[in-house]
């Protein structure tokens, strides 16, 4: 048995030898299938005793079985970050959209699965949008679709108070020049996305604030106060990890429903259940000191316990 992945997200354990043996056996078993397919195809074309419909059906089934083997071979031999996968490979002939995912930055083997993107608020962990793409796209490709979903939710709000996304934080994985430009065009500050491994300064000086506003071209659209808040919220690994940990506790660590659609539904339901729990915590004021301070700065509603009981 072998463990992999980040320690903070729980240990994934696999029977490495068993997986390797099973996979090798499957690949060896299916190795001559290409030659057999060709032969069978030739015989089928020559065979005049069968009807046209019957031959077409057999050819279709033949192609499907051949594709299944090709798919397993492709998944098995796929390269990740220039290195051939040697351990912990799990192939799935039933789901072609499964792709190898690299688990974090730790020196660990890759495995197959899904990479879910979430967009959450730093104060309490309410998740506004999630995305489960097919395959393993780059991290920056998640951002704009997620923001579109948030905008869709904002458009549904009938409140007179105008809501908008002011800043976005992330890790070095989403540090992309094109993405930054796209976010600035939308009027979103990118202070929370680091450019180096150095931590973000949570309290920038007035000169630094001015530099940030000038660099993003938002000095007329965003205020220094908003920049201060964006820097304070910034990117904090423990905050995001806590949001992910609560999702994992609700079973988001393993996709149990079938196919891509199943994964989307499972993650969506998990996120909604998580959001329900977050709203309960907000209503009961069971929020961390950091969260309370942040909510105060954002001017969010402070519920009185008596109001909750009366409602």
């Amino acid at each position: 048995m072998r463990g992999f992945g980040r320690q903070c997200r729980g240990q994934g354990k696999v029977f490495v030898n068993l997986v390797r043996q099973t996979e090798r056996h499957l690949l060896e078993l299916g190795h001559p299938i290409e030659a057999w397919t060709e032969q069978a195809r030739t015989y089928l074309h020559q065979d005049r005793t069968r009807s046209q419909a019957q031959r077409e059906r057999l050819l279709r089934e033949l192609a499907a079985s051949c594709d299944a083997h090709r798919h397993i071979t492709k998944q098995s031999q796929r390269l990740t970050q220039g290195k051939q996968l040697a351990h912990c490979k799990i192939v799935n002939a039933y789901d072609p959209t499964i792709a190898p995912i690299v688990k974090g930055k730790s020196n660990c083997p890759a495995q197959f699965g899904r990479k879910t993107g979430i967009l959450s608020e730093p104060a309490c962990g309410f998740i506004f949008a999630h995305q489960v793409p097919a395959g393993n796209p780059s991290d920056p490709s998640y951002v704009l679709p997620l923001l579109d979903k948030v905008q869709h939710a904002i458009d549904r709000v009938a409140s007179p108070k105008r809501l908008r996304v002011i800043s976005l934080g992330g890790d070095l994985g989403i540090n992309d020049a094109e993405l930054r430009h796209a976010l600035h065009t939308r009027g979103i500050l990118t202070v929370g996305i680091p450019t180096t491994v150095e931590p973000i300064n949570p309290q920038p000086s007035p000169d630094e604030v001015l530099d940030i506003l000038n660099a993003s071209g938002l000095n007329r659209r965003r205020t220094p106060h908003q920049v201060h808040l964006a820097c304070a919220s910034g990117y904090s690994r423990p905050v995001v990890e806590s949001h992910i940990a609560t999702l994992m506790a609700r079973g988001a660590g393993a996709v149990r429903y079938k196919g891509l659609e199943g994964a989307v539904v499972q993650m969506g339901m998990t996120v909604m259940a998580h959001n329900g729990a977050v709203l309960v915590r907000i209503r009961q004021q069971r929020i961390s000191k950091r969260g309370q301070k942040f909510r105060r700065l954002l001017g969010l509603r402070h519920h009185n316990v008596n109001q909750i009981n009366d409602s």
Partner: protein
Amino acid sequence: MGILRHLQHWLMGRGPQLLTTEFVPETHAIRQWADTFPWDALVEAVEQSFARRFPKKRPQGGRPSVSPRVLLALELLKHELGASDEDICQRLRTDVAVMYACGLREVQADRSQAHFVLPETLVQFRRRIDPALMEELLAIQAADAMEQGLVSPAHLLVDTFPAEQGSQRVTDATTLYKAQKKSFASSSRSRAQARRQPRPCVSKPRS
């Protein structure tokens, strides 16, 4: 038989009437959790999506189907409580807090019925949910929270996390189980073959 399995058994109940609102305390965790959802808007979105994508072939007739409110709540509760389909359907029969979360305010249970909702019904409901509807449901929840002033989208964080393939077909546990089963089957087959083979007759040399 397929339609019979979808019956709403509680409609036939003749037992004592139970008011879930009175029975479940306001401080109960499931009640508080369930009260955060904008159920009317969520159910309307589900019904509209289903009506558009799965139009009814027959206009009327037959017993009413299980309400989407119940099925949606069960699906969400399943993830909140970490339960399986079977477990959550069983809890709906016996747990009054789960009944409350599913929007059942008055219950007249029938002792002879094992389930209110069958796990198969929950699976069929889940299959009908597409990614667009899922996005819509999450947007409704987020919009409701923003409208109440509980959360703000002003400052956001984005991140990704991996989820391994946990399908029953490919997990290590099932692979191990299948391998053990196969090895057991092959060993028993070889033993049976050995038994079937005639033993070499060895006659003792007569002295």
